[in-house]
């Protein structure tokens, strides 16, 4: 009788241990999976802090960057979690609200925020004439200086070639070249220097 009881207890303990181990493993798997999704969930939460309609590709960018951040941490679950949560939580707590403020700053009359749209570029740029009210020395770097002079002369009424530095020969250490520098009056800066028609640089 005692032997049968001992056997039953032993079997019970073994079954209990097996059940406990299985549940513990399931719990670990559940926790691992949920923690694995945590960074992405945080980014989803961050997206809720951004004005509706403007967040789609910003969130997509953050998720893609998160993929890159986590890519080289496979097999390192704690590093994976730490990096992912740090990146995403900071976006949730600071990045998304600040980005939302930026979007607010870019709102147009119809209430839409063009922030991060590439067609918004240039909207708030200052004029070159404001930055250089006294005019500016600029360099011509194209392959047709004669044509450029002719174009400027006919369109703006002054000749870059009248500047003594135009066509100046520069001799350096084993390097010689012809420089085409000229003074551009302030009133023409935006039309010439800020104008992509001419291959002008500085």
């Amino acid at each position, binding site marked *: 009788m005692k032997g049968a009881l001992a056997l039953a207890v032993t079997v019970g303990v073994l079954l209990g241990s097996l059940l406990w181990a299985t549940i513990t493993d399931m719990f670990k798997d559940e926790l691992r999976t949920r923690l694995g999704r945590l960074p992405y969930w945080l980014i989803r939460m961050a997206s809720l802090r951004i004005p509706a309609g403007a967040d789609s590709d910003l969130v997509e960018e953050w998720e893609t960057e998160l993929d890159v951040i986590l*890519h080289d941490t496979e097999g390192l679950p704690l590093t994976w979690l730490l990096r992912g949560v*740090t990146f995403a939580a*900071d*976006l949730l707590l600071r*990045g998304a609200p600040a*980005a939302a403020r*930026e979007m607010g700053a870019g709102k147009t009359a119809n209430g839409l925020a063009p922030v991060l749209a590439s067609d*918004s570029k240039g*909207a708030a*740029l200052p004029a070159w004439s404001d930055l250089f009210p006294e005019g500016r020395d600029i360099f011509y770097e194209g392959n047709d200086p004669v044509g450029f002079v002719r174009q400027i002369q006919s369109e703006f009424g002054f000749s870059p070639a009248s500047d003594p530095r135009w066509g100046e020969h520069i001799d350096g250490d084993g390097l010689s070249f012809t420089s085409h520098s000229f003074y551009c009056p302030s009133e023409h800066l935006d039309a010439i220097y800020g104008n992509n028609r001419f291959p002008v640089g500085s």
Partner: protein
Amino acid sequence: MPEVQITVAVARVLREFLSEPSADRYGYDLMRAISFPSGKLYPILAKLVRIGWLIREREKTDQGEVGRPSRFYYRLSPNGVELARYELALLNEQLAPATNGLGFLRP
């Protein structure tokens, strides 16, 4: 004048872009390069895109080839290069120590 306040943080981002003005830069790469956390970097990028100093575009890659969705990259616009240089030079000038007109002594 530009609709952006050139804070130290903005200046650091601009300086990083100006180190290679024509290079395409990604958010995570910038975070590592200037040691900014995501919550600090992305609002600055958003601001610089809004005022036109940065161009933001999606990279043109085939997801099947690279094994991940295409990322978004940032690059200085032509005007952004000039204005960033101008603003950083101005900031540098403002932060330079005042002199008595006699110049500096160096060992």
